[in-house]
C-alpha cells in the first residue's frame, strides 16, 4: 500500500510551487524558447535586419564536417571528465571519511576549488603547463618528457580535462562524503566482524550503498562537462591545436559571442539541449535500474 498525502485545497499546491515555476520559466524556459526562435533566424551582427530562414542553420551545421567531428571530441572530453572526476573524488572522500585528526581542515581545503571561476581555473592550469614558463612543464622537461599542448592535441585535451575535473572535484567530494557518512556504521562493522577486508567491504557494502549518489553525480558531471566548461577551454586552449579541443559548447560560445553568428549558435544550442535531454532520459531509464535506493 502506498501512502500519499493529498492537499485538500485546490489552490495551495499551485501557490506553493509558483515561485519555483517563476524561476524556471524566467531562467530556463524563456531562454530556451528564445534559442529555438533564433535558431530559425539569421540576423546581421547589430540586429538591424532579421530574416526567417527555416532550417538553414541546421543544414549548414549538418554540412560542416568540423561540427560533426566536434561530437567525438565532446564525447572524449565528457566521458573523461565524468570518469576521472568521479573516481578521484570518491577516492578523496573515502580517505577524508577515515581521517580523524584535522578532518575539518582537510575537507575545507578540498572544497576550495569549487569557489574558483571556470575561467580562472583554466588560466591557473595554463600557467602551470605553459610550455616555456610553466612549473609543471619545466619539471616534465627535466624528466625527459616534452610537454607541448600548443601543438600536441592529446596534451591539450589532458590539460582541459584536468582543469575541468579539478574545478568539479569539490562538488563531487561533498556529495560522496555526505553519502559515505549516511551509511550505517553497524553494517560495516558487522562485515568487519565477519572477516571482510576493507577492499571487500568497500565493493560489497559501501559502493552499492553509494550508488544513488554516484548516479546523481554522473548526471550532474555529464551536464557540467557539456555546458559549463567553455570558459576553461577558452582560457586554456581556445579550442586548439587545430580543432582538437573544440567541444560543442565552446563552438556555441565562439560562434555566438566571437563570430556573432547568433542563428548558427542558437541552432547548436538547440542540438545541445536535445542531446542532454536524451542523455538524461537514457541515464534515468537504464542506469537508474542498477541503482539501489
Amino acid at each position: 500500500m502506498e501512502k500519499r498525502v493529498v492537499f485538500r485545497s485546490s489552490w495551495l499546491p499551485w501557490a506553493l510551487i509558483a515561485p519555483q515555476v517563476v524561476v524556471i520559466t524566467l531562467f530556463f524556459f524563456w531562454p530556451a524558447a528564445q534559442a529555438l526562435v533564433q535558431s530559425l533566424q539569421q540576423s546581421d551582427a547589430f540586429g538591424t535586419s532579421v530574416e526567417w530562414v527555416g532550417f538553414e542553420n541546421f543544414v549548414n551545421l549538418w554540412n560542416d564536417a568540423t561540427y560533426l567531428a566536434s561530437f567525438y571530441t565532446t564525447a572524449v572530453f565528457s566521458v573523461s571528465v565524468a570518469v576521472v572526476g568521479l573516481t578521484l573524488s570518491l577516492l578523496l572522500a573515502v580517505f577524508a571519511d577515515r581521517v580523524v585528526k584535522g578532518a575539518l581542515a582537510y575537507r575545507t581545503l578540498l572544497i576550495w576549488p569549487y569557489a574558483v571561476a571556470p575561467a580562472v581555473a583554466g588560466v591557473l592550469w595554463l600557467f602551470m603547463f605553459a610550455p616555456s614558463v610553466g612549473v609543471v612543464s619545466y619539471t616534465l622537461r627535466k624528466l625527459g618528457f616534452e610537454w607541448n599542448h600548443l601543438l600536441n592535441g592529446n596534451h591539450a585535451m589532458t590539460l582541459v580535462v584536468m582543469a575541468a575535473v579539478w574545478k568539479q572535484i569539490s562538488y563531487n567530494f561533498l556529495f560522496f562524503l555526505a553519502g559515505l557518512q549516511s551509511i550505517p556504521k553497524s553494517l560495516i562493522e558487522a562485515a568487519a566482524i565477519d572477516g571482510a577486508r576493507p577492499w571487500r567491504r568497500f565493493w560489497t557494502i559501501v559502493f552499492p550503498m553509494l550508488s544513488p549518489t554516484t548516479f546523481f553525480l554522473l548526471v550532474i558531471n555529464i551536464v557540467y562537462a557539456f555546458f559549463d566548461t567553455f570558459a576553461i577551454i577558452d582560457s586554456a586552449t581556445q579550442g586548439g591545436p587545430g580543432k582538437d579541443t573544440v567541444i560543442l559548447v565552446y563552438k556555441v560560445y565562439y560562434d555566438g559571442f566571437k563570430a556573432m553568428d547568433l542563428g548558427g549558435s542558437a541552432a547548436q544550442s538547440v542540438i545541445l539541449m536535445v542531446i542532454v535531454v536524451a542523455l538524461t532520459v537514457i541515464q534515468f531509464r537504464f542506469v537508474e535500474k542498477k541503482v539501489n535506493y
Partner: protein
Amino acid sequence: MRLKFSAVLFASLASLSAHAQTEIHFWHSMTAVNGEWVNDLAKGFNASQTKYKVIPTFKGVYDESLTAAMAAFRSGNAPHILQVFEVGTATMMASRKAIVPVGEVMKNAGVKFDPNAYIPAVAGYYTGANGQMLSFPFNSSTTVFYYNKDAFKAAGLDPNAPPKTWIEVAQAAAKLKASGHQCPLTIAWQSWTQLESFSAWHNVEFASKNNGFGGLDARMKVNSPLHVRHIENLANMAKQGLFVYKGRTSVPEPTFISGECAMITTSSGFYGNAKKNAKFDFGLSTLPYYPDVPGAPQNTVIGGASLWVMAGKKPEEYKGVAEFFNYVSSPEVQSESHKRTGYLPITMAAFELTEKSGYYKENPGTDVAPTQMIRKTTDKSRGIRLGNYVQIRTIEDEELEQVWAGKKTAKEALDAIVSRGNELIERFEKANSKN
C-alpha cells in the same frame, strides 16, 4: 525656504554644467602602454576645449569590445565611438544601419577633412566603394621583424645586419641554434604575418576580386605555389627546431621579451612594449621575403584598428566626435602617438614631421613600418576585405597548427583553409547581398 532655494540653485548648476559639456563615449581595446596613450589623448583633447568631454572606456580585447558594442547597440546604449580591429572592417561596412560614415560626420560638423592626407594603404583600407571614408584610421600597424641583437652577437652574427630574406632567416636561425638558442624564431599573428602580409609583400593575391575589395564574391587563393612553398619552408624549420610555435595571436610576444626566442615577426605596435620591457638590445627590420619572386618586396598590409561612429546619436554629439577626430589627426598629435606606440603615423604630414624631428635617426628601425607602407599600393597589396574574417582567421590558425605539428602537409592545410574559408565567405555574401 533657504534649503529649498539652495537645492534649486544646485539643481540648476548641475544641469548647467551637464549642458555645458557634451559627453562623448569612446570604447577601446588598448591595454598597458597603449591604454595609457588613449587616456592621454582624451585628456589632451578635453584640456584643449571646454565644450566636449571624451570619456575613454576599456571594454576588453578587440573581439570582446566589438561584441559588447553589438549588444549595446541592440539595447540602445551604444557608445559614440567604437574602436574596431581591421578584421572586423567588412562586418562594420556591411552594417550600414548601425554606423555613420566618418566622411559624413566630418562634413555635417563642418570640420575640414581630407582623405588624401592619409597614407594610401591606410586610407584605401577604410574607404568604401563610393570613395567615402567610412571609419577613422586610428592605430594602424603593420607586420615587421624584430631580432635580439645580443643573441645575434653571441651567435657570431652581425647585430647590425638583420636577415632580409627567408633564406637568410633560416641561416641565422641555424647559427642561433648552434650557439644554444632553444627558440631561434617564433611567429606572432601567424595568419596576418605569414599569409596576409606575406601575399601583399610578394604582390600575389590572397583572395580573388582584389582580395575582396572588388566585391563580396571574392574567393580565397592562399594555396598558390608561392604560399605552399613558404609554409613548407616554415614547416621544415619547425622540424629542425629553427622555428618554434608559441601560440595564436600575440601570445608568442612575451617569449621575445623574455629572451627565449631570438627573432619574431609581429605587429609594429609591439615596439612600445618591447622598448619598455626587453632587457636586451633589439633591432627592427623589414618582413623577410623571397628575392626570386618578381615584384617583391611590395608593401605590407595594415593591421590595428580604426574608429567607427555609431548611429542614433544627437547632432551636437557628432560635432564633438568630429572635433575629437580633428584633434587626433593633427600632425603634432599623430607624430607623438607614432613615437610613443610604434603604430603608423597615418598621415604623410605626421611622417614628415617625425622625420624632421630626427626621431628615426635616434631610434634606428622605427622607420621600418612607415617605409614598408608608404608605397604606391597595387590591387593585390591594398589589404584584405573578406566577410566573416574573424572566423576565417581562426580556421587559418587551426590549419597552420596542423602543419607545425606535422599532421598535415603545407598543401593540404592551405587547401583546407581555402575550402573552409570560401564556405564562410559564400555565407556572408548570401546574407549581405539580400540587404
